[in-house]
């Protein structure tokens, strides 16, 4: 029996197909303007790599901000919030994890689950997008380095600069200001990572994270932010065995399987 999870975020789309709790196919791509097109495309790619047809999927769950439309388009039997999906996905990857920090394009979430992966509590950034994936995206663009280079670069720094603003748009001009004054890229990058981590921690405090935290979402790939988070929170940031960007879709697929089981 095959089960699928489709996660349409604001920047990327993911599809995961599972069989007997094992991932048989997973695909990530950048989103098209329309969530349903993204879902079709990414799901098509996943089916292809699994070597099965849409008919072989016994049930699918959509999640992410396009979840309603994807279900409405008939590609999923159900839609579940990305908050539950990330929690359950992380739990399925490592049942000992009780806290997940998920940082997506414009959302940052801190999720707590119980021993069965059931959602217990969560917080999500309210009015401000500082401390989300978008923040790092803008900053790396301003720094003129690739998103994936940002982490390694920051780790080289001995004396990170202090970002005194909160708003993404202002931190951006602060970055320009530092660069104009000849501050080294690595020190600015480190300052960015710290600012990012501080925003996330400010959110995390509201649910009192457990000492063992799993970091998911695109930002989990940023080694510098991860290091900063561990420093400030004094908690270990588990890296999921699965690509951290896939956790949401994986959780959706596992929920589909669970739903069919019960």
């Amino acid at each position, binding site marked *: 029996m095959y089960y699928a999870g489709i996660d349409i975020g604001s920047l990327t789309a993911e599809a995961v197909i599972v069989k007997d709790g094992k991932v048989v196919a997973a695909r990530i791509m950048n989103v098209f303007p*329309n969530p349903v097109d993204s879902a079709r495309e990414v799901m098509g790619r996943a089916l292809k790599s699994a070597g099965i047809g849409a008919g072989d999927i016994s049930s699918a769950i959509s999640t992410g901000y396009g979840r309603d439309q994807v279900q409405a388009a008939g590609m999923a039997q159900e839609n579940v919030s990305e908050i539950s999906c990330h929690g359950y996905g992380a739990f399925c990857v490592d049942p000992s994890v009780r806290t997940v920090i998920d940082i997506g394009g414009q959302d940052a979430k801190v999720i707590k689950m119980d021993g069965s992966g059931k959602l217990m509590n969560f917080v999500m950034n309210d*009015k401000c*997008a500082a401390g989300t994936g978008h923040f790092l995206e803008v900053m790396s663009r301003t720094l*003129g380095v690739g998103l994936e280079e940002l982490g390694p670069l920051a780790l080289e720094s001995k004396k990170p600069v202090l970002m005194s603003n909160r708003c993404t*748009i202002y931190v951006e001009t602060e970055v320009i*200001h530092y*660069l*104009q004054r000849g501050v080294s890229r690595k020190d600015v990058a480190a300052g960015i990572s710290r600012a990012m981590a501080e925003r996330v921690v400010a959110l995390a405090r509201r649910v009192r994270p457990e000492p063992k935290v799993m970091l998911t979402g695109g930002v989990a790939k940023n080694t510098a932010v991860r290091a900063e988070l561990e420093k400030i929170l004094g908690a270990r940031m588990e890296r999921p065995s699965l690509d951290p960007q896939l956790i949401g879709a994986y959780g959706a697929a596992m929920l589909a399987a669970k739903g069919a089981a019960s």
Partner: protein
Amino acid sequence: MIAIGCDVGSLFAKAVVMDGDKLLASRIARTTGNVASELEDLLSAVVSDAGASRNKVERLVATGAGADLVPGADLCEDGVACVAAAAAYYLPDVQLAIDIGGQSITALLLDPDGDVVNFMRNDKCASGSGRFLEMMSEKLNLDVSEVDRETAAAKGPVELTAQCGVFAESEVITHVNAGASRPDVMAGVCAAVAKIVVAQGRRFGSAGHYTLTGGVARTQAVTRIIRQKLPGTFHQFPFDPQLAAAIGAALLADTD
């Protein structure tokens, strides 16, 4: 007297060469990393545009956040003084100048002599800034210079309600996904920017005679809405409004 005015803002550096109050040449360049050499190039380029030689230039006046970075500046003037000077000099009736920069909006109240009675800057809400307009048009695969042409085709502008610039971006995407036309979405962005500017412009009561300077004032799609919403008489700045501070700096070359 031949003078250079150089305004180093948060996003762009602008340089002008002026003979008294006559604009001989101007240049605008985006600043990136190595600003010192960028400014060197900018200055020599604008001087040669003016058909003058560097030694004919009697004074170099710098202004803006990066004024201290301008090589060989004879003096530095703050942004308020420069914008006020430019607006006051060319627009004798203007009582209020609203300068919309890369990241802040400043309303300047002028007296009959053209001196500053008071000013107020909003630098806590990026949604009215030049950078915001830029980010939003980027999202719609537009260059800011194309915004006017694009919005000309707008039927019914969408309404943006997000307070945070970044969330406004997702609101923009939502509207696009909901099938709103690009002109309508872009027009909505312009309306959002205009609203913030209008609020700032009203800060000193009814404006009377006013003008708009700074990069955003180049975009008619924004200024049109401001002129509808802001009471008073609008006066068009006679040159590229993004140059206002640089021009003001040059005008102040021989006053202290």
